[in-house]
């Protein structure tokens, strides 16, 4: 059962990353590769702060802001310099590699001896005995709930509606006398802020900052978003659960899939299992979709 908890913990942490990817990929329709750089950026900022003895809880907002700044740059490159979306993400991702090395000082910073959001005097006072096993999960869950409801709330504000409009119909935003470029930049900032927040929590949970931790982060994020939103589409009619929740579910399922690969398959098979899982989910949704449509045309 401990392993299941660890899967859910990691799933929730990467779910925050997926939430960011959801904003860019699904809402803004912007394939943002900054993620591979902003995830370790959050971790690098966290490592640097913890090393200098800052209160660990302060790392959360600071990492978010650092990520937001990275997203802002991607947005500016895209909107102001008129660089294509994919390319502006690649430019930032590449630049962030150096930034991350500089911020953290080196490529691998262990945080075992530092106080973190999971391990400090304040917490050991609250959690003791049997429930201490679940303390990590509870802390992660708390941050997850806060970020999810904050995002849900934000998407309902005027600015949030504009954000959604940019992805669907850019002209509508222009016709409302709003600058669509600025809206995109805002969206990218929020998204990468969330990604960096995820990196911040991840490195504190694993007790180490590692520069390579961002490699492939976008893949995990995209897979989680696609699985999550597909499930949402499938169950939309019969559920009241928001799509943002499904994104987290997607991340947990993706991590569970790696978990199952670790448990039951030879080490070489891991990537194949992940690939097959993703393909399987997409086919399943295709089948359900078709059935539904057929049902409709008959009716």
């Amino acid at each position, binding site marked *: 059962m401990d392993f*299941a908890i660890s899967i859910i913990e990691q799933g929730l942490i990467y779910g925050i990353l997926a939430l960011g990817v959801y904003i860019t990929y699904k809402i803004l329709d912007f394939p943002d590769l900054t993620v591979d750089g902003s995830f370790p950026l959050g971790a690098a900022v966290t490592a640097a702060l913890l090393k200098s003895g800052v209160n660990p809880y302060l790392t959360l907002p600071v990492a978010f802001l650092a990520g937001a700044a990275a997203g802002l740059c991607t947005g500016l490159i895209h909107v102001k310099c008129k660089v294509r979306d994919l390319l502006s993400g690649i430019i930032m991702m590449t630049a962030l590699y150096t930034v991350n090395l500089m911020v953290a000082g*080196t490529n*691998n910073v262990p*945080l075992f001896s530092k106080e973190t959001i999971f391990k400090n005097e304040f917490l050991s006072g609250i959690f003791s005995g049997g429930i201490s096993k679940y303390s990590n999960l509870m802390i992660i869950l708390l941050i997850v709930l806060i970020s999810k409801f904050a995002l849900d709330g934000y998407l309902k504000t005027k600015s949030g509606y504009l954000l959604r409009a940019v992805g669907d119909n850019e002209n509508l935003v222009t016709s409302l006398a709003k600058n669509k470029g600025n809206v995109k930049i805002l969206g990218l900032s929020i998204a990468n802020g969330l990604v960096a927040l995820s990196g911040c929590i991840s490195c504190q949970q*694993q*007790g*180490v900052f590692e520069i390579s*931790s961002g490699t492939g982060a976008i893949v995990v994020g995209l897979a989680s978003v696609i699985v999550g939103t597909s499930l949402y589409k499938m169950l939309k009619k019969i559920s009241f659960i928001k799509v943002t929740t499904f994104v987290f579910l997607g991340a947990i399922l993706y991590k569970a899939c790696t978990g199952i690969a670790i448990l039951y398959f030879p080490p070489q098979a891991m990537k194949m299992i992940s690939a097959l899982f993703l393909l399987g989910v997409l086919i399943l949704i295709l089948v359900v979709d078709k059935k539904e449509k057929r049902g409709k045309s008959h009716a």
Partner: protein
Amino acid sequence: MKKKVFVMILGAILTTGLFTGCKGENKESKESVYHIGISQFAEHGSLDNCREGFLEGLKEEGIEEGKNLEIDLDNANSDTATAAQISDKFVSDKVDLICAIATPSAQAAYNSAANTEIPVVYTAVTNPEEAELAGEDKTPVGRVTGTSDQLPVEAQLKMIREMLPDAKTIGILYTTSEANSVHSIKEYEKYAKEYGFTLETAGVTNTSEVSLAAAGLLEKVDCLTNLTDNTVVSVLPTILEQANKKGIPVFGSEIEQVKLGCLAAEGLDYINLGKETGKMAAKILKGEAKAEEMPYELLEGSSLYINEKAAENLKIELPEELKNRAEEVFTEIEG
């Protein structure tokens, strides 16, 4: 309807829980069988050798797979998050010992096993102090110990000096994300001057950049020397080809690289390193020693490997004394 969905999702989560949970419960608690989880960071020649050596070391101490040893081997495919998942699994399986190969896996294993009784034995960690796996004086920081694969940098520099008395500049290619390499570069910086060399380094982030970086570096140096850098070593043939065209010798850091055509190496034998680690693990399993009391170990000395064919191609006269000292002299270039 809403309830139905809830039940479905809950069901899905619980089944994953069941799947993952059942393995731990199936474990039989036979006293005589040791259960070891090996967490290897990447598929890589040296790391594979470590693993083989580890099992050999255990065997020499009477702990053998199929008899009284159960091995659970997992590979993180160079992904730190996966490394964490692997060690979490070992902890929830309640293995008797975790063997972690390479720094990120060692850190993940140490983190996962922090609040348990499970000892962690690592190998191929270049600098346990910097990785916070050991304190000063090599003392462990917890139930964790192992072996370091620190390169014999001084021996290597001395050997290069003997072979190339006139060389002035040494070039090193390395990956900026590999902790082992970054540490070794610092070591080279420390000792290069003593042997009359200036150091030129070029950092890369992935294999596709190596070729260009090598070309740039070869403009400035009299010879190249390799670290145990995973990225650089994996495209070693490209580097060798470029260097050979310019007649610049390339030195290796371990036996496999010399086989591939590096001129020579004062290197580690990773099988031996693994064996040392296996013996330490055996002591812990048998209860003869405690991980938290064992300082990490370094392999004593280094072994010299020479490739005569490479020397011939470069028209370099090999000093007899070096040839006699060599552990192994290769007369062919593999591949």
